[in-house]
């Protein structure tokens, strides 16, 4: 084993908050073992040392929001053998994709006194809209155990155990009492991708969808239930327009409510 060339790991950042990269640095107990197994070849947040590509495993954080990044992601893809996108920004466009529903020029002028200096795209889009992606890890932020799982699976060549079912299953595996049924608190868990470990319900709040849509999400049915529990159209619109606003299932559902709100 020892003689084998260590795979090179690279971490890339696009428009994001750095939280997903930080998840890697939060793997305190596992980092020594990881540094044994891989060459941390490009990870600007943590190291000034940069090794040349190609990289065996690239972790890409952030969404595409500028013309410069449009070019940079192509370059990253070219030097990456296996490319994993991490986090809601990279997999769905992130919270900054809320601009996709508005006129971006207006956004710029709200924030910046000299809008003409700002070079930005009309939209914030996920990496997979621009280059082929080998695996997507969801979450805002990603869960560090899942990140380790993906890296571990990559190293040995297996499928990562990252199920795409609902958060509800995680609630039940943990023994958390359903907040929707037992408190009447609206919860996005039934349409949200598992992975966080059902954190919000165990803190007595409804899930707000930070892991994005699960497979086959029935957002329409859940919206109906939310209104039955007293949520306003505005609240329903807003919850689908969160950190995964641009994920297809959430976007479609929110568009419906936006139209109803008008």
């Amino acid at each position, binding site marked *: 084993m020892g003689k084998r060339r260590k795979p090179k790991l690279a971490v890339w950042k696009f428009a994001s908050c750095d939280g997903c990269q930080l998840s890697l640095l939060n793997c305190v107990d596992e980092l020594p073992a990881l540094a044994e197994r891989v060459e941390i070849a490009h990870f600007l947040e943590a190291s000034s040392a940069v090794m040349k590509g190609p990289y065996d495993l690239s972790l890409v954080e952030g969404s595409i929001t500028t013309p410069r990044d449009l070019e940079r992601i192509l370059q990253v893809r070219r030097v990456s053998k296996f490319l994993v996108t991490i986090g809601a920004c990279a997999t769905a466009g992130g919270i900054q994709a809320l601009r996709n529903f508005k006129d971006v020029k207006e956004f710029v002028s709200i924030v910046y006194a000299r809008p003409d200096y700002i070079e930005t795209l009309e939209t914030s889009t996920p990496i997979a809209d621009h280059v082929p992606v080998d695996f997507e890890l969801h979450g805002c932020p990603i869960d560090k155990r899942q990140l380790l799982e993906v890296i571990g699976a990559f190293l*040995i*060549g*297996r*499928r990562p155990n990252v199920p795409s079912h609902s958060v509800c299953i995680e609630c039940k595996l943990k023994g958390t009492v359903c907040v929707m049924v037992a408190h009447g608190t609206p919860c996005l868990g039934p349409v949200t991708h598992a992975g966080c470990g059902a954190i919000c319900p165990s803190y007595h709040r409804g899930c707000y969808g930070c892991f994005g849509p699960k497979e086959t999400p029935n957002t329409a049915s859940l919206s109906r239930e939310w209104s039955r529990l007293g949520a306003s159209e505005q609240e329903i619109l807003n919850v689908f327009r969160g950190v995964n606003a641009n994920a297809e299932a959430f976007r479609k559902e929110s568009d419906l409510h936006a139209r109803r709100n008008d």
Partner: protein
Amino acid sequence: MEVFSNRIEESPAGGPGFFNPWIPHTAEVIGKRREALGVHTLRLRLRDEGVRRSYRFRSGQFNMLYVFGVGEVPISIVSDPDESGVLDHTIRIVGKVSAALVSLKKGDTVGLRGPYGSSWPLEEAVGKDVLIVTGGLGCAPVISVINYVANRRDRYGNLKIFHGVKTPKDLLYRARFHAWQKHPDTEVYLTVDHPDLEWKYNVGVVTNLFREVRIYAQRSVVMMCGPEIMMHHAVRDLLAQGLAEDRIYLSLERNMKCAVGFCGHCQFGPAFICKDGPVLRYDRIKEWFGTSEI
């Protein structure tokens, strides 16, 4: 459940060292042969002598093969049940576990649990014509039965093998088909949907062949394996030719995690493919077989 009486009741319940059915044994890769692009046969030998000696299987059954750290998948046993001590598995690379299995080398170790499931009706078929219908990218479960019958030509009637694929390059075991063709009283019919210039056999779906070839419905047993839609058409056409529903056997595939009826994944209506199947008699599943997304 008497509906599925061809399941093997004497299969290794508390059998030889299989007390906890979740625990694999280890087996050594003792040989490896390339069959076609992305298809290889691994020859395995159980490492523990006691287990090896008591291990018995029937044609049509499968093992769960485990690659260290990568995962475990169901794979049919294609070697001859009477050849003692070795187990052949023909594996097509479709994903991570199958790829990892195929990447193993001689001397490597796999985890092995089995044998599981029902088998082909080879006793019932003695003295009868055997019709093999198979399609798609080479279906391992029928290889075992063809081998079995081909090696015992005197016990069975005429052997007809119908094999259909999309294009000539999907025809994986060309050499094997040629070899079988040379066996006495054996006919091999190959067909493709989209021929190329060199293709010299039939063209069209496999079921077209039934009309051209003389089939003695009364004295035939059909064994079938392949994409469900292909089998669906084949069954319909064979019934039209007068074959009885209880003479048609299908081998089905479903997701499997345990292979012993605990995990629930392989349910097909009332049947568990892992213990009632994979080989099922058509009349017992016909309502389910016609329904989509079962």
